[in-house]
């Protein structure tokens, strides 16, 4: 797909060569189905628990789309994404709740504030090659929690704060949405709001990834020396990825605040960062839909754990002592899944759906039922290129996805 040949990297006049957003009919149809589902699902599901799980998944997907841009496309690992999400959440409450700014003002401003923090940190973390960003971002989580605990005026300190920021655009209030004759509940309104914003974020990210700056990130990821020789500057490119990812983190944070309605500094600790890393690895690094898939999957883990606690003796039921707590079970599941996917299925869950085009044609002729089984080997082989950060791949400079079969 995104073959970064020398002239596409160098010349600005070659923007016309950027890959198309929806290059197949399947993608076009899926995009339309997605948009329809955003309205259709909340209208048909009234259960507030299910809707909250799905809404939280959308928020996580916004945050991890940012993280995926940094980790998947730019090849830099951040273990501190929760810091930016937390910054966005508390800024959202300060601007929207305490100062009473309207939704269309406080949400972008809190995202920008998180982006500014990212811009402040980026030069420290990205000056050197190596795992520096992972270490610095881990430190950020602790610095962030310390700051949030002690800035009691803004964050409520240890006790946290109730989020009262408004969620209405003009007359349209998402907390009590009116569609025709139906008055929707807050959960239904928040579902529509969060999934719509997610759709916009995905569209923006897909465009960033196929633009010059996005291809520059991927070129640096695949072979930084080669990319620099071709005229891509490493530090600005990496900073670009980091700042965009922080902005998306802040955006998700602002939304998470109004979804949860009550936030504490502890909500944005290492555990949340771990969850985000798990989402992008499980969903699929360097793919647009991977984070969405991963968020839905990870959103199910706590639900599953509570359900399993009935049957498995080693998980303690909520409120009971002894055995493994539900959050502890979740963490070990994340850890094990990260290892398993990285070792055996580098492309993540999304790679089960991405069938290389030529293979797809061949299997369609042979047997239409057996697709995932036969393509798995070539899938993992090409996705190794997609996710490798340091491995030089001279014969195939930059491939965005498994879709491009060599």
């Amino acid at each position: 797909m995104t073959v970064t040949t020398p002239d596409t990297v160098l010349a600005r006049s070659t923007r016309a060569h950027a890959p198309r957003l929806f290059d197949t009919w399947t993608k076009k149809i899926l995009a339309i189905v997605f948009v329809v589902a955003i309205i259709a699902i909340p209208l048909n599901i009234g259960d507030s628990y299910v809707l909250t799980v799905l809404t939280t998944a959308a928020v996580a997907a916004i945050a991890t789309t940012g993280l995926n841009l940094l980790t998947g496309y730019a090849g830099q690992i951040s273990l501190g994404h929760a810091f930016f999400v937390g910054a966005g959440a508390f800024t959202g409450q300060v601007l929207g709740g305490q100062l009473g700014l309207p939704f269309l003002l406080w949400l972008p401003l809190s995202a920008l504030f998180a982006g500014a923090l990212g811009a402040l940190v980026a030069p420290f973390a990205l000056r050197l090659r190596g795992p520096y960003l992972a270490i610095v971002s881990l430190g950020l989580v602790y610095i962030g929690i310390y700051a949030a605990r002690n800035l009691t005026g803004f964050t409520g300190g240890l006790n946290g704060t109730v989020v009262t920021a408004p969620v209405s655009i003009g007359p349209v209030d998402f907390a009590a949405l009116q569609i025709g004759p139906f008055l929707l509940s807050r959960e239904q309104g928040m579902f529509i709001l969060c999934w719509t914003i997610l759709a916009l974020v995905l569209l923006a990210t897909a465009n960033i990834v196929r633009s010059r700056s996005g291809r520059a990130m991927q070129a640096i990821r695949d072979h930084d020396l080669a990319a620099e020789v071709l005229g891509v500057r490493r530090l600005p490119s990496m900073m670009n990825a980091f700042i965009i990812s922080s902005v998306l983190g802040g955006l998700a944070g602002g939304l998470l605040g109004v979804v949860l309605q009550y936030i504490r500094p502890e909500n944005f600790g290492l555990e949340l960062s771990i969850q985000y890393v798990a989402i992008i690895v499980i969903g699929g690094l360097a793919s647009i839909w991977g984070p969405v898939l991963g968020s839905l999957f990870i959103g199910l883990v706590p639900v599953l754990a509570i359900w399993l606690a009935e049957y498995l003796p080693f998980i303690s039921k909520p409120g009971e002592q002894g055995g493994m707590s539900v959050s502890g079970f979740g963490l070990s599941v994340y850890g094990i899944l990260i290892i398993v996917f990285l070792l055996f299925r580098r492309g993540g869950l999304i790679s089960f759906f991405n069938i290389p085009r030529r293979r797809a044609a061949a299997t369609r002729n042979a047997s239409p039922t057996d697709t995932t089984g036969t393509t798995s080997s070539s899938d993992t082989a090409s996705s190794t290129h997609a996710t490798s950060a340091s491995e030089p791949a001279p014969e195939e400079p930059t491939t965005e996805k498994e879709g491009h079969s060599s």
Partner: protein
Amino acid sequence: MTDILQTLVSGIAIGCLYAVLSLGFVIVARASGILNLAQGSFVVLGAYLAYALIHQAGLPIWVGVIIAMAAVALFAVLLEAFVIHRVTDHFVALLVTFGVTIAVAPIITAIWPGDSLNLDDPWALEVIRVAGIGITARDATLIPITAVLLLGFFLFFRFTRIGLSLRATAIDSEAAMAQGVSTRTVYGISWGIAGALGAFGGIILSTTVGGGVRPGLEVYAFLALPVIILGGLESPLGAVVGGLVIGIVQQFSVTLVPEDWGSGFAEVVPYLVMLVILLIRPAGLFGRKEIRRA
């Protein structure tokens, strides 16, 4: 004056712990270039195994400590051989080792539940007074032991054949291979050492007053990360010096920083030092500036 010396001594005690923990990171980073976040799981495993051996199996404390270190070293070697060795690039290796820590820590704390398990260390709350400075018996025992341990490692690196092959692999693994050094053995040994050091660090952590073997020990292993940035990612000497510097700075920040800077400032001091170092000398005190050739 005695106040300053007092703080200095407790700083050195914490610094020794940081030195041990960060040496584990540095040894693996030198041999294979991987930032081994699984160190956190070594710390947790070491502490809980020692608890099980000493408290539940009734072994004498030093026997328990040594067996726990050996067991964790074995775990580390097996982890390298069966999991990490399958991974080719450092990006994925970092994530996989992180996954190991996330997966192992909750399982271990579920097997031995409890907020604070007592390791039955023999020091209790005794304090030795030397020239007006109070040193806890624990610090008085652990500082020399750590010093001997670190000295032992340096002698091992400098004067043994295995130490030489470890250093050779660190400098140029292909050239070392050409000279007949088995890099697989070298990786195994370096991971084993890292495991033993991590376990020892976990046991030291569990003997702090009011601490005990407790959930969340893996987070302390990450406190060694600022240290290795201060000292230089691949410098063992840097790990020791950086550990001591950060330990001392942290202890002074406990006593000197005014109350209104908020609670828990001392806990983030290592990370703040790290940011300053990245600003003024990003390669670390003893790190070399990387020069790359295609």
